[in-house]
């Protein structure tokens, strides 16, 4: 038995060594070697779409030899980064779980001549340590949504504000715009402002609680699609109409396909995009760098749309739904 095990282990080692050497040979075939560090794709629909687009872009057909590493923990991500540096990748693409602690490892990368590109999330490090960052502007997402809401021209805005996990970038950005509007305008009121922690169940309970209290409201501003769905479930149970021509305006974020379908059906009013498709931007930057061009824009803000129920089309659902 022991002998068999030993044999098995040796075989495995030999095979992996062979696999490694095979890979090395490919590198010399002119493939660009990239190490991609991302958050766990199961984290959300956004992350799933993000990971999928990265995997579709960084393929051998497109001239890349890509390795992927996933973690929701900053220290694990940093360990992966160190590993990629030792593997001598050409580019390191990072969606950081946390904003701090990256300085040392990025300096190591720089010393090794590895170009670092940040996507989706920024970090607290000197901007000489990376060549570009491609990010979403969450505050702008909030602004777009709130200005759309202001354009609806209601006499009075009584808003149920359902927040995401407190302190997350998406929550801060999307709450900020609404908070400011409410503070500046007398006819904008927050009926309630609570966190459902991205969770549909909690959102349903929050809205249910407002309905039970008998207070009137005409807007639900949920900071992601799941929570908007939970809120709508509570409205349906209480026979409160929503969507186009309804008593309550329903707003969500993230543009899940099913959420855009709700928009198309007129059950919701607005959905703000959080663009997960950074891969093509990163590809363009790498191509420029390979061609020896200077990168002029260090921070690339992704273009993000807001969809309104009265103008959305099936084509939008197919193209932008995640």
């Amino acid at each position: 038995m022991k002998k068999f095990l030993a044999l098995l282990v040796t075989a495995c080692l030999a095979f992996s060594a062979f696999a490694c050497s095979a890979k090395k040979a490919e590198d010399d075939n002119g493939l660009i070697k990239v190490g991609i560090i991302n958050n766990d794709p199961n984290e959300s629909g956004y992350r799933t779409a993000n990971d999928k687009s990265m995997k579709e872009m960084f393929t051998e057909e497109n001239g890349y030899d890509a390795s992927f590493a996933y973690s929701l923990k900053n220290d694990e991500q940093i360990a992966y980064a160190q590993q990629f540096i030792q593997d001598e990748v050409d580019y390191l693409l990072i969606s950081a779980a946390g904003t701090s602690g990256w300085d040392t490892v990025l300096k190591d990368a720089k010393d090794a001549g590895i170009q670092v590109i940040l996507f989706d999330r920024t970090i607290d490090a000197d901007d000489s340590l990376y060549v570009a960052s491609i990010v979403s502007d969450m505050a702008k997402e909030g602004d777009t949504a709130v200005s759309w809401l202001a354009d609806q021209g209601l006499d009075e805005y009584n808003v149920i504000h359902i927040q995401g996990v407190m302190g997350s970038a998406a929550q801060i950005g999307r709450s900020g715009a609404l908070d400011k509007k409410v503070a500046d305008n007398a006819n904008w009121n927050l009926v309630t402002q609570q966190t459902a922690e991205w969770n549909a169940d909690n959102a349903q309970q929050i809205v249910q609680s407002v309905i039970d209290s008998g207070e009137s409201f005409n807007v639900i501003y949920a900071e992601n699609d799941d929570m908007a769905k939970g809120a709508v479930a509570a409205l349906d149970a209480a026979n409160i109409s929503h969507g186009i021509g309804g008593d309550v305006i329903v707003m969500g974020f993230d543009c899940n396909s099913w959420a855009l379908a709700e928009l198309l059906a007129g059950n919701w009013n607005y959905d703000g995009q959080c663009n997960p498709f950074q891969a093509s931007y990163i590809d363009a930057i790498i191509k420029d760098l390979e061609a020896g061009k200077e990168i002029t824009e260090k921070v690339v803000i992704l273009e993000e749309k807001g969809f309104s129920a009265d103008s959305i089309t099936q084509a939008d659902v197919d193209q932008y739904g995640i």
Partner: protein
Amino acid sequence: MTQKVSTKKSGSFLETVVALTRKQFFIPIAALTILVLFNLIMDPSFFAIKLGTNSNGDPVLSGYLITILNNASELVILAIGMTLVTSASGGQDISVGSTIAIAGSVILRILCNRPITVANMLFAFLVAAIVSMIFGAFNGVLVAYFKIQPMIATLILFTAGRSIAAWINNNTLPVINDPTFAYFGNFIPGIPVPTPFFIAAICVIIITLVLKFTTLGLYSQAVGINPSSSRLNGIDPAKVKLITYIILGLCVAVVGLIKVSRISTINYSVVAKDIEMDAILAVALGGNSLGGGKFNMASSIMGAYIIQFLTTTLFKFKVESTALPAYKAIVVIILVVLSAPVVREKMSAFWKKVTSKSAKEAA
């Protein structure tokens, strides 16, 4: 003469109070009373129940009490399984949230490609139940046969469960649009009481019957109190522990069905998040020892309703988002400290002093 009679009466009244404080369900009942009184004083409309219609025109009851009965259901069902696991193995299963995600994912996976019929839904639930029970058995085997501490053994699925759930559906987010599927988590047309309440009630009835007519309760308490002496008496402790984990697995499948039915979809990372902590808390609030052994199922179930009562109360009073966990923590600290055996002993000693003093004064 008349005076003597009256002191005797007050003495016996105090004695009953002392006796009551020693009863296990005193703490949950006291907590519930405090919450009810608080809401009654602050705003009696809390207890109003209205009969209205939902957007399909079907009659539904609404009001805070209905919300509590509705949303506590998942916790009640989990508390049943968690109580048994706690009793037999002297530890808790912290993987229930993740395994709920798995059960929900299985149900959606099966129903997504099939028409929504009663037979298919039953089939989906049965498969989910079997899967959940297998995962429960996995935990149970680690605990019972490999003698790993329950919290460590279940940490494996706690960590991996949500990824497994996502993998079952290839990382997609299935949505079921057929309204029939939503009946389990909402209302059945024509019945104004939310379905989850009925499901929880059925589970409670079943477990009551099981505890009454089988030796499960006796065996799990025996194993929890002293595994070696129960072995000497012909009970296989490992088998009993394993069975409790499998029962919890079944509870998880039921909760998974309610959860995915509520919103007809699933979000692997947040569905039933932190519910394991609430389930453990329900057991603790019920005055059960988390170290295993004796248990009282009714108090655990009461504990589950108290947690939801508290959550709903906090939502009603619009406690600020960031402060919500803090308020909950304070209430929990008070309840748990009050139910600690040391404090309760001190309290009953204090009561005794008061009674003897009043008796002396009367004399």
